[in-house]
């Protein structure tokens, strides 16, 4: 791949990510103009980047998106649900292209067609925009009717019940009494005013328009019961006129100060003071210029900044802004700002990561010396070294944790895209499903948060396509017509657990067994002796699928295997539990951070190896006689289970001819439902290591997941149990 494309990929991915976060934030906070501008700027930069690498299709697509969104900036158009969805689709499409470039090293050849499809969506938006115009027709009078409530309103909602809705037991007005955050409600008659004599009392001839202070997301969920005949329009601040120049300049100084708060760049403060004082004097606001000068008089740098900020904010009268963000007050962390607070270049973090791994090497080194010294007469030295080790250990731990925290993001970032997707997927299959998200504040490493979207989407698709039944089937089975799918995240000591649970029809082990035999995933003989869990686990095998026909969503042969592969790439594991008729739980167990691995060291063939503790079931010593040859392989029985012995010679070369008698040390490994054991010369200790991926000629070597350094300076090779066991 050429250098330009490389750079383009890095930049574009960041921009797509930023734009997506901005968009999702805007969906819930449509009045945040600052974020809207950030979002549009990201789109614009993306377009520019596409132009530089001559990726015309991408540039055109973004141009279409910009066109569709330009009305939003000027305040002529609301950022509707449709617009958000289409913009997200557009960003998804760009991600797909970026993946393509990453894989093939060149711009995808079929990009033009995909671009055309995405642009067609935006071209339809004017039709929607037309609808928005008519929406505006009801929103304006609604806001005018309740002038005192209008400023507090975040969302306008309109519902037009079916004309025969009373016959179906609907009571729409009273249903609206339960609208979250209901501020005001109006009833709009379909005709100007039907005559009383002709009125059919059981025909519903009105629409309901309401103002709410709940978030768009909450209302989206609430409104699902009403189907397509409800519209939700996020409201933007009525006055979207740009700030006067003076205010813009002062605002920019505040932003500069806030950004520079962390970094120590003393040079910036005097220039901020100069600018602010000059513009204020120019505007004849001498008193306020004096305020700034007074604040600048502070000698201590930190205080000076605080004072300046306070003065600037006072002049702009923006200090008490809490009412702008009622949800913040309620303790909800604003997603965008929380993660946007630190913008650290990835390269810098990686440098820090390298530094910390060196520090850990030193730490291990001291521990090693302490051990050494204990065996020598200098006991005093030993205890001193031990103390030092303890201190260094604590320091390294803290440093490590704080550095890893830079890379930590809440799962909300990936979760929040699913409620809409689930609804869309269910609707496309004529099913009804609701997604309930729990624990979205759980945090995980950036790589994990980013890598979760695809596997989760896959699992959710499967749940809706194969798990959730048609509404009538559900009702017949005594369930609610709308299926509930839980998407949960939780954190154990060092793992992040993510579950997708549906209340659908579950996985029938017999059908799985038949399908697996049919598709030669497993032999009939082997299948007969498999446990219920092991059979259900077969859905993760390559080539497995129970569907005969391909639906719009799944069944294209890209089954659960893809899910397992993506999760294993993140060093995680996938499990599934299912009860026929009751539902299925798919569970991902992922490491909290992908950089720190807990390993146990073993020695074999004169080398020290590390094995991730996750995969180790037991370390045992068994009499040599218990190992029996089975064909070309060897195995032994332990706790009623036949465990094959991995031929370490294949991996590590010839092992010293050991004695024919005596005991053998083995490490029992388990990956998914596969068991295996590895014969080793001796067991070492457990430790946390930072894994360095294999580079150069060693890159891609099977069976090894990375290396680290030992206290005595030897290289520790960390084995990849997955490769070993298979």
């Amino acid at each position, binding site marked *: 791949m050429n250098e330009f494309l490389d750079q383009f990929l890095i930049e574009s991915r960041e921009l797509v990510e930023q734009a997506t976060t901005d968009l999702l934030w805007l969906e819930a906070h449509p009045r945040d103009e600052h974020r809207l501008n950030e979002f549009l700027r990201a789109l614009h930069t993306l377009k520019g980047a596409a132009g530089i690498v001559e990726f015309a299709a991408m540039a055109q697509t973004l141009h279409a998106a910009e066109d569709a969104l330009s009305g939003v900036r000027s305040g002529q158009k609301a950022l509707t649900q449709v617009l958000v969805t289409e913009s997200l689709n557009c960003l998804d499409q760009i991600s797909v292209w970026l993946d393509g470039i990453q894989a093939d090293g060149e711009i995808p050849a079929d990009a033009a067609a995909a671009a055309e499809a995405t642009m067609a969506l935006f071209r339809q938006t004017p039709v929607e925009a037309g609808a928005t115009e008519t929406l505006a027709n009801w929103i304006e009078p609604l806001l005018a009717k309740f002038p005192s409530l209008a400023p507090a309103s975040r969302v306008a909602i309109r519902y037009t*019940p079916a004309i025969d809705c*009373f016959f179906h037991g*609907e*009571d*729409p*007005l*009273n249903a*609206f*009494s339960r609208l979250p955050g*209901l501020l*005001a*409600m*109006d*009833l709009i*008659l379909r005709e100007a*005013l*039907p005559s*009383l*004599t002709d*009125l059919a*009392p*059981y025909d*519903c*001839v*009105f629409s309901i328009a309401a103002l709410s202070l709940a978030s768009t997301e909450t209302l989206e969920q609430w409104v699902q019961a009403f189907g397509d005949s409800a519209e939700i329009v996020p409201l933007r601040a009525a006055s979207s006129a740009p700030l006067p120049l003076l205010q813009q300049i002062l605002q920019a100084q505040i932003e500069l100060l806030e950004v520079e708060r962390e970094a120590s760049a003393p040079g910036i403060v005097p220039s901020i003071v100069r600018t602010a004082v000059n513009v204020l004097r120019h505007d004849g606001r001498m008193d306020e210029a004096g305020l700034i000068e007074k604040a600048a008089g502070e000698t201590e740098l930190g205080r000076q900044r605080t004072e300046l900020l306070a003065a600037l904010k006072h002049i702009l009268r923006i200090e008490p802004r809490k009412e702008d963000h009622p949800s913040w007050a309620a303790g909800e962390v604003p997603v965008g700002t929380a993660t946007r607070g630190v913008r650290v270049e990835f390269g810098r973090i990686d440098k820090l990561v390298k530094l910390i791994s060196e520090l850990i090497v030193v730490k291990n080194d001291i521990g090693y010396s302490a051990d050494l010294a204990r065996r020598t007469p200098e006991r005093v030295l030993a205890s001193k070294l031990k103390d030092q080790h303890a201190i260094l250990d604590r320091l390294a731990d803290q440093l490590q944790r704080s550095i890893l925290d830079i890379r930590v993001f809440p799962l909300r970032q990936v979760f929040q895209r699913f409620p809409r997707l689930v609804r869309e997927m269910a609707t496309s299959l004529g099913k009804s499903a609701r997604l309930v998200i729990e624990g979205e504040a759980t945090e995980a490493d950036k790589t994990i948060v980013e890598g979760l979207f695809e596997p989760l989407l896959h699992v959710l698709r499967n749940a809706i396509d194969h798990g959730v039944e048609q509404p009538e089937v559900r009702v017949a089975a005594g369930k609610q017509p709308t299926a509930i799918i839980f998407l949960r995240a939780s954190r154990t000591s060092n793992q992040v657990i993510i579950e997708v649970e549906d209340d659908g029809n579950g996985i029938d082990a017999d059908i799985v067994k038949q399908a697996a035999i049919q598709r030669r995933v497993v032999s009939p003989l082997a299948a007969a002796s498999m446990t219920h869990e092991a059979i259900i686990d077969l859905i993760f095998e390559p080539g497995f699928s129970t569907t005969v026909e391909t639906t719009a969503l799944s069944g294209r042969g890209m089954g659960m295997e893809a899910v397992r592969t993506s999760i294993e790439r993140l060093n995680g594991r996938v499990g599934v539990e299912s009860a026929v008729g009751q539902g299925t739980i798919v569970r991902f167990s992922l490491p909290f951070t992908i950089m720190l691995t807990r390993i146990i060291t073993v020695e074999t063939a004169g080398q020290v190896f590390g094995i991730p503790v996750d995969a180790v079931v037991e370390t045992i010593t068994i009499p040599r006689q218990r190992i029996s040859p089975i064909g070309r392989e060897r195995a032994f029985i332990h706790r009623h289970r036949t465990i094959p012995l991995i031929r370490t010679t294949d991996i590590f070369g010839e092992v010293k001819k050991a004695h024919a008698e005596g005991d053998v040390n083995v490490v029992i490994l388990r990956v998914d439902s596969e068991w295996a054991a590895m014969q080793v010369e001796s067991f070492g200790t457990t430790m946390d290591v930072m894994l360095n991926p294999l580079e150069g000629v060693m890159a891609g070597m099977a069976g090894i997941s990375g290396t680290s350094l030992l206290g005595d300076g030897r290289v520790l090779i960390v084995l990849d149990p997955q490769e070993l066991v298979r």
Partner: protein
Amino acid sequence: MSVTWRDDATIWLDGDCPVEDAEPLLRLLQSNPDSVVDWQTCSHLHSAVIQVLVIAQARMDGLPGSPFLRDHIAPLLMQANADKRAFEPRPEMPM
């Protein structure tokens, strides 16, 4: 039935007014367009009933106890009635 005609030319809505009340209420309002609707003891009005009241631009008497009816439905009905009176030659005294 929760819709009753009282001798003082008042239509009385009492308690929970279900969807079935829409038709008798409409008949009463058709034959007595100027009658007053007393809804002070009303606890629930079905949408169909509210619709009849809005279209008839009925004159409501008092306020019911239910917060939803008082805060959200009463303004709608008052507005409808005000629209009606705006077109009448001799406006009546406001409620």
